[in-house]
């Protein structure tokens, strides 16, 4: 990668980081309705995976999906406005934090149901395989979702049909408040790949370049028609399950240890070692902060949706669809 490309990875991670911080701030101040799952701490997974994808590839995301969606190229303003529940949001205020999607950028959707997106990723990949256009689907899910039946059903199907999916198990060590060692006996989710006779790999999810390399290899395999890969990225969520989660289930010192392995700190250190001046990185960060602030302003100033729009988009506007609302 060129130095510019490396800096771009850092920029996207910064965007996610500051986006999430601003969203959390607004949420705690009561400006955002609903609830919020923050991906702070997991930026290297989102950026590492998405940087390895082609523009016409797809991602299927989770309830902790802001990072995936931003890394795949969603518009900051439309996303922020969606989380604010505004009409200018990418889903017109009907999806919110847990259901952000942007089909134009290959983002099939975040998902409020743990493990709910995994079977859907197969379908998108099946269409790509039928059309022989070389597209790949990156399917994100957490360690918690790896215990859902959909995980098993979908990996088995993807395996027997050699579907072009990269199953990205984003192992942040907790399914809600239950630690991984309490919810499964295997140490590595990737070990489960053996059950489907597909490759499984474990990478440091806080190392953006390691994630990127592993994803590139999995994508190559998928594009060659050889089928799916189960890629496990070990990482950690700084905010806990949701913003406002006191995190009482954590081991003493656990958060602090992970903070030292913050993916942004690690990658900044790497970039400086590669000769990127600290001042340039500071400037980049200031620029990202400004962009995010503009997105917040945009969301804040945007209108709430008109009430009658709640009745729209239930069905596609076919004759039957129009008559199905009564």
């Amino acid at each position, binding site marked *: 990668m060129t130095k510019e490309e490396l800096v771009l990875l850092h920029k996207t991670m910064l965007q996610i980081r500051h986006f999430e911080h601003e969203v959390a701030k607004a949420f705690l101040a009561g400006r955002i309705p609903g609830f919020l799952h923050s991906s702070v701490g997991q930026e290297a997974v989102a950026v590492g995976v998405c940087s390895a994808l082609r523009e016409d590839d797809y991602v299927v995301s989770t309830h902790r999906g802001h990072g995936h969606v931003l890394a795949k190229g969603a518009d900051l303003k439309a996303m922020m406005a969606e989380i604010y529940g505004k009409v200018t949001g990418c*889903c017109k205020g009907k999806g919110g934090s847990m*259901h952000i*999607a942007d089909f134009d950028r290959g983002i*099939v959707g975040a998902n409020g*149901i743990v493990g709910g997106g995994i079977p859907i990723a*197969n379908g998108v990949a099946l269409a790509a395989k039928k059309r022989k256009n070389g597209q790949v689907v990156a399917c994100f899910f957490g360690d918690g979702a790896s215990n859902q039946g959909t995980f098993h059903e979908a990996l088995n199907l993807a395996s027997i049909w050699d579907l072009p999916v990269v199953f990205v198990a984003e192992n942040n060590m907790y399914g809600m408040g239950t630690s991984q060692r309490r919810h499964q006996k295997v140490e590595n989710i990737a070990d489960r790949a053996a059950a489907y006779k597909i490759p499984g790999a474990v990478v440091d999810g806080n190392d953006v370049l390691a994630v990127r390399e592993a994803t590139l290899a999995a994508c190559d395999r998928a594009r060659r028609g050889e089928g799916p890969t189960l890629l496990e990225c070990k990482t950690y969520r700084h905010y806990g399950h949701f913003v406002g989660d006191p995190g009482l289930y954590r081991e003493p010192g656990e958060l602090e240890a992970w903070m030292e392995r913050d993916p942004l700190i690690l990658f900044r250190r790497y970039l400086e070692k590669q000769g990127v001046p600290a001042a340039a990185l500071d400037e980049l960060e200031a620029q990202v902060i400004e962009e995010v602030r503009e997105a917040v302003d945009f969301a804040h100033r945007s209108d709430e949706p008109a009430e009658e729009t709640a009745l729209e988009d239930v069905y*596609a506007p076919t004759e*039957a*669809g129009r008559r199905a609302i009564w």
Partner: protein
Amino acid sequence: MREITCREAVREALREELQRDEDVFLIGEDIGFYGGTNKVTEGLWQEFGPERIMDTPISEAAIIGAALGAAAVGMRPVAEIMFVDFIGVCMDQIANQAAKLRYMTGGKVTLPLTIRTPGGAGRSAAAQHSQSLEAWLIHTPGLLVVMPSTPYDTKGLLKAAIREDNPVVFIENKMLYNTKGPVPEGEYVIPLGKADIKREGRDVTVVATSRMVYFALEAAAQLAAEGIECEIVDPRTLVPLDKEAILESVAKTGRLVVVHEAPERGGFGAEVAAIVVNEAFDYLDAPIQRVCSKNTPMPFSPRLERFITPQVEDIIAAVRTVMG
């Protein structure tokens, strides 16, 4: 006109749509090489090959997920769930994903997805292979629900369902697969949301679905001998519902009996009754009667199954009640 069975009607509709549109494919358990547990898809695997007629493992959530994911990017899949009872296994994919994806994305996604599945009792298949679960589905905004009775309706409505740009659950009736009826050669499509008057009559409106249409017709034939003329309205699609046809009939007869095989409580009949009470109260000359299954799981014993499910004599009794 030639006569074919409902099974053949489904197969013809599938074959014609597979020929017409290369984005159409079938996906389900043993629908290909085996020919389908009800032999509905027999021969299609040989004709169209394993890439269009896709056999899956026994994984209902994976089937619906694969179908809806493919639909979201423009394919036109037809998934089969072997028995409607099995939608419990994939209800998240149907109710939380397929039904809501368009809405949650503010209308950005179109899901041209059809889910075919047989329901109904009558074969002593007991509690997990005999249900009528349409109420679960009509209660879920985002889905269209079709429930045909005759071979003619089955073929025309299935073709419409496959061409529809919204998720459709198409509920066949396992007891009707061998039922014959006139079906013209050549192409026709029946628009979703249009009821059909299966028998005209002046005295009582009987709204009946699926196999109950035949029971209602038998009841009407017997009642006609005593001078009571029933009008049998077959809604054919439950969502969208042809309210106008029902209201028009009630305006003429002043009496309503609703018949369905699903349990009475919280069923489709309650919805029809509420609509008629709200919109045609002044026309009603008698309280509405519902003829439905009793509110129990489906028993295995043929005697018990018959006792639980609506029979012709129950419909006759209900009609006599509303006639006073």
